[in-house]
């Protein structure tokens, strides 16, 4: 657990028209955490989020960033807003400039970066969100998802420690929402603290480290997602719904099945629960293997040849650059979201899979697979693909 980076102490806020928006909220966020703020419309989510970068000043109570109370003079606010990046719900409202490049460069320019530094920051940010080569496009020619990415890049260019998203998936199609959630996961893996507000509990449930249920300007409940979303009464009060997987688990439990302690957060977890409950072992064949192809150090792997030799292997991509890599190489992807879990599912069926991956996500795969193997006493091998010649190093043998 990291140290506390953001903390609210008994904050209250009243709208100018006299309605109470926030009625005494205290909580804290640790460095590197993923927090989901959920609640019905008008619960005060956006208001609360806007306090984190000093856009709204609470009437009473204090907010601490990095253990020092936020101060509201111009210079302090600038430093704060550099370190706490805010991505608004409507990207059209956030994008200011006539071209993508200029918009992403807006923050760095105002922070006084040199032209060269600005250019570097912009290129880096655009690469992060997968919009390389969009520099000169005007924002009104982009799709909703692309606009959202531009807005995110504009914030990333300032290299903040904390990223605050107001409804990051609103107005996006399901695949676009998944891509954005995956991007948030990737940013978190790179050490950013991420706070989002959302209605979409199905997306927030597997993603968040902690969920905060908000109602009428008060915290209704604050806990790990399976507890926070598992309390049906609270969830109903907050005008949300219990995530399908969790509901299924709870119903099985009520019917007296002996289930593992840990509540399922993904389809993989659920399959595991069912296998345990009905057959009492997770895997029936020799488990398949998972190969990783690091796009930051691809070695001399010719993916086309590799893939032609193993047409049955499913391929997934993790990380924006990995997806870009797959797109450039016209590699058909089977999974782009929840990739690790889907590959473990394949492995449990005895099938091999390949993950095209960016360096920063490699550790996450190892951790997740090891955790799964430890909990379930199976052995799934994770290999790194670095060469075509199998005698030279670990390659994935074609399943024959």
């Amino acid at each position, binding site marked *: 657990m990291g140290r506390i980076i953001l903390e609210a102490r008994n904050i209250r806020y009243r709208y100018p028209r006299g309605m109470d928006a926030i009625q005494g909220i205290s909580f804290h966020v640790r460095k590197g955490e993923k927090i989901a703020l959920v609640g019905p419309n008008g619960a005060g989510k956006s208001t609360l989020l806007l306090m984190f*970068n000093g856009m709204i000043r609470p009437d009473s109570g204090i907010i601490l960033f990095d253990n020092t109370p936020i101060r509201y003079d111009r210079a302090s606010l600038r430093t704060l807003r550099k370190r706490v990046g805010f991505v*608004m719900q409507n990207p059209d409202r956030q994008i*200011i*400039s006539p071209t993508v490049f*200029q918009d992403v*460069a807006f923050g760095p320019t105002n922070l006084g970066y040199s032209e060269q530094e*600005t250019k570097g920051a912009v290129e880096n940010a655009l690469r992060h969100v997968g919009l390389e080569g969009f520099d*000169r*496009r005007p924002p009104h020619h982009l799709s909703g998802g692309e606009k959202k990415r531009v807005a995110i890049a504009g*914030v990333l260019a300032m290299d903040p420690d904390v990223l605050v998203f107001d409804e990051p998936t609103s107005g996006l199609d399901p695949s676009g929402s998944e891509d954005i959630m995956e991007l948030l996961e990737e940013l978190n893996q790179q050490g950013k603290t991420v706070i989002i507000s959302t209605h979409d509990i199905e997306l927030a449930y597997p993603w968040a480290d902690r969920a905060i249920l908000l109602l009428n300007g008060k915290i209704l409940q604050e806990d790990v997602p399976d507890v926070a979303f598992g309390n049906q009464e609270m969830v109903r009060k907050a005008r949300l719904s219990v995530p399908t997987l969790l509901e299924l688990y709870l119903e099985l439990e009520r019917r007296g099945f002996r289930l593992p302690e840990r509540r399922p957060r993904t389809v993989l977890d659920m399959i595991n629960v069912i296998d345990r409950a009905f057959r009492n072992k997770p895997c029936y064949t020799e488990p398949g293997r998972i190969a990783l192809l690091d796009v930051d150090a691809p070695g001399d792997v010719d993916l086309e040849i590799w893939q032609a030799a193993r047409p049955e292997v499913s391929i997934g991509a993790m990380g924006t650059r990995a997806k870009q890599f797959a797109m450039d190489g016209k590699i058909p992807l089977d999974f782009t979201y929840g990739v690790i879990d889907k590959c473990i599912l394949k492995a449990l069926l005895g099938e091999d899979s390949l993950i095209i991956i960016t360096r920063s996500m490699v550790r996450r795969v190892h951790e997740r697979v090891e955790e799964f193997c430890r909990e379930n006493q199976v052995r799934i091998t994770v290999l790194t693909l670095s060469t075509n010649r199998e005698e030279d190093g670990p390659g994935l043998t074609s399943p024959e």
Partner: protein
Amino acid sequence: MYEELLEDIAQQNGLREVNTYTKLAAGIGGILLCLLSMSFVAPLFIAFVLSFSILFLARIDAKTYGKIFVAPVVFALFSVSVIILLAGGEMAFWRWQPLSWLSLSLTRESINEGVFVFSRVIGGMSALLFIALTTPMTDLFVVMRRARLPEEVLDLTMIIYRTIFMIMSHMVLVYQAQLMRLGYRSFRESIRSFATLCGAVFVASWEAGEDLIKAMEARCYEGKFAVLGDGSPVRLTSALAVLSFLLVSGVIVMTTRNITFI
């Protein structure tokens, strides 16, 4: 209601990646040569070359180009016919004096003058459209900054540019909502609906302005707008093409000085 804007076409034209100055040289050079020319030949040549590049190099849809061209041509035809009838001259083919102070005539000089003016309009229009259709506003901002336009003006221009499209899409939404509820059924109704449309758009733009300030503040605004990235560099082939076009046109301007239509 939603028409394709010149700007949208320009953003996707085939000459987008050609250096902005090269394109401006062709366009502005074309206009200047049209003005310098003393005969109708050079402007027509310029119109031909630039229209050809618009259609085949920039790959602008011929129908779209024709549509854009029709309005000024019709306008020019009216003006030119007035010039031809009123200019007067010595070699008259036809003369008529319906009123004591009004005499209409068709003379050799007036026809020459009319054809000359008309060809200039065509030449100038194609040069202007060449710029408009191949160089989007976003690229012109770079030129404006180079030209030392005051920062305030430039920043304002860029914000307005960005906002126009947002407000326009909002306007389209409101208009469609009105249309769906038969808001433009009668003349009276149309006027009423149009008034509410204007009101709604005004409120929306006001809100957009407030949001803009918030957005800028949230992103550490300090009075600076990002420097525009440089466009594509000057390429030898395109620069040579433009240069030879201007040279040939210049030669035509010089040599055809004395040629008249009839």
